[in-house]
């Protein structure tokens, strides 16, 4: 069996026993990528020599010798950081993001730039300005997004683990579609310094891994306060991995009824309901709860996220970095033409929407109203977490669709984010992990089903522990896609 199929925890034992070296792991991962990534499109680039050099200098730590794939919007000094956008062709990161500094301090090796939807805007990876990524379980289908490349390379054993970012589900949904584990940490858990901003009140960096244990290890490595990100809270970082084994007997798990309405695919509903039964047999108590503002979350999310994006992406003006149009005769034209030539369709669409909802005369009707509804959505979670330790929900109402199927209908695409956007609006943490397989109606190949465990702010230990116990009792996470 190739080293690339191993988990961080397994490789730690092999490295500590001196049975393998970091170079062997890097080679295993990149050999797999060289062999098959032209069919998957999970990576935009990688640099074997840089990885060797980083491995030689890596300090002792939980990740020493472990290569980690990095989503193409997190800055790694000297590596490209193009956000899968044509506007940032040839951009080279001048510094390390804090999450990368922390990763390096734990001994980790940043390796490869993972494909994504341009500027993290999308749920299918079809909006990548470079190339689409494919689902390793069925290459005709999307891997999800926006961290589609991160999920695909982990699922296809072209990476041991990956870092992604989650603004409205962008770690959890591709993890579910590709059959890996994805964690969106609480708002303020992981520094965003060096993360190219999409929506600053929602963005979080988090791990995509093969097991819950690996997610705990990687989260522990990247978390912690940062003087360069004032939104990153000064909360101590618990031993996430050490707390995995604690008993879950008596833990209360809420099933929000609004997450199981008629829009959900029956196979996904029954897989999540079966997972609830499994949790009961592990000693947890299942409680029905209500989250009355669930239906508003998607609309609120797309107003707030696009408003913030329209401001954040104003920095791409062709002055300090990025594409500059050769056609412009004055500064105003330079802005408008450079942005027109550099941004893709979905990015332009979201900038237009965000600009409109913030514009004079419409601010109150859209943006302010969305912020008020955000208060109600957050209260739903506060109320729920007074009754239960965590919530159990589906990740997506439908399985991954075929590439190109929804390309001209952005609203249909947005509606599929119904179960994931609330966590970002409320600032809580969420863990996506495999809970079954299904064969979509329009296909012959099985694809994974994911479930989501939602926890209160900074209750990552609780959802990781629940997820770990479920994973130990099931074997969904051990299944491998047949790539041939």
């Amino acid at each position, binding site marked *: 069996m190739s080293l690339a199929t191993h988990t961080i925890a397994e490789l730690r034992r092999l490295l500590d026993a001196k049975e393998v070296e970091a170079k062997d792991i890097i080679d295993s991962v990149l050999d797999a990528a060289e062999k098959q990534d032209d069919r998957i499109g999970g990576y935009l680039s990688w640099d074997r020599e840089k990885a060797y050099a980083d491995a030689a200098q890596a300090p002792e730590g939980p990740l020493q010798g472990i290569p980690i794939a990095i989503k193409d919007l997190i800055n790694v000094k000297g590596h490209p950081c193009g956000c899968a956008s044509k506007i940032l062709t*040839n951009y*080279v990161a*001048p510094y390390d993001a804090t999450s990368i500094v922390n990763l390096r301090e734990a001994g980790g090796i940043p390796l490869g730039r993972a494909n994504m939807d341009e500027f993290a805007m999308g749920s299918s990876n079809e909006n990548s300005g470079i190339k689409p990524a494919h689902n390793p379980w069925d290459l005709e289908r999307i891997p999800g997004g926006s961290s589609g490349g991160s999920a695909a390379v982990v699922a296809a054993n072209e990476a041991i683990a990956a870092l992604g970012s989650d603004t409205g589900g962008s770690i959890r949904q591709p993890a579910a579609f590709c059959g890996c584990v994805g964690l969106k940490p*609480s*708002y*303020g858990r992981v520094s965003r310094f060096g993360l190219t901003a999409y929506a600053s*009140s929602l963005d979080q960096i988090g791990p995509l891994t093969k097991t819950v244990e690996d997610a705990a290890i990687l989260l522990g490595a990247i978390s912690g306060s940062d*003087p360069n990100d*004032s*939104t990153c809270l000064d909360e101590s970082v618990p031993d996430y991995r050490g707390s995995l084994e604690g008993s879950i007997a008596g833990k209360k798990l809420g099933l929000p009824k609004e997450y199981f309405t008629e829009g959900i695919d029956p196979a996904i509903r029954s897989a999540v309901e079966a997972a609830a039964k499994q949790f009961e047999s592990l000693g947890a108590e299942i409680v029905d709860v209500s989250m009355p*503002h669930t239906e*508003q979350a998607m*609309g*609120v999310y*797309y*107003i707030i996220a696009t408003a913030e994006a329209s401001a954040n992406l*104003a920095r791409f*003006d*062709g*002055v*300090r*970095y*990025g594409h*500059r149009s050769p056609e*412009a005769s*004055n*500064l105003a*034209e*330079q*802005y*408008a*033409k450079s*942005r*027109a030539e550099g941004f893709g*369709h979905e990015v*332009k*669409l979201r*900038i*237009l*929407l965000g*600009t*409109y909802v913030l514009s004079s005369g*419409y601010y109150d009707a*859209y943006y*302010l*109203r969305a*912020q*008020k*509804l*955000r*208060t*109600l959505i*957050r209260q739903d979670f506060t109320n729920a977490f007074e009754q239960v330790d965590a919530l159990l929900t589906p990740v997506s109402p439908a399985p991954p669709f075929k590439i190109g199927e929804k390309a001209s209908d*952005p*609203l249909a695409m*947005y509606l599929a984010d119904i179960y994931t956007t609330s966590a970002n*609006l*409320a*600032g809580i943490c969420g863990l996506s992990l495999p809970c079954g397989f299904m064969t979509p109606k329009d296909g012959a190949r099985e694809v994974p089903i994911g479930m989501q465990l939602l926890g209160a*702010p900074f209750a990552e230990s609780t959802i990781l522990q629940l997820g770990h116990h479920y994973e130990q009792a099931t074997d969904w996470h051990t299944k491998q896609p047949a790539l041939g």
Partner: protein
Amino acid sequence: MSAADPDFNIRYVADLARLELTEEEMATFEPQLQAILGYMKKLDEIDVDAIEPTAHANPVFNVTRPDTPRPSLTPEEALRNAPKAAKDQFIVAKVIE
């Protein structure tokens, strides 16, 4: 299709956003944006008059650190990605006639 938001003027918004759009793009964006804005009407169903807005999930205020000089990017590093630069400066189109 009927316009969900008849006030929506794509030329005006594109200008605010500093985006030059082709006629063809405008013809694609307009119905897509109208459909999205139509969906947003769902948010009008709830009375929010007495609700305080939330800007951040974990509100923290006035986070400060000592204002001490520390190493930053060198001019070479800062200009490394510039489309046009000379004499340690970014070159832009002429702004004053």
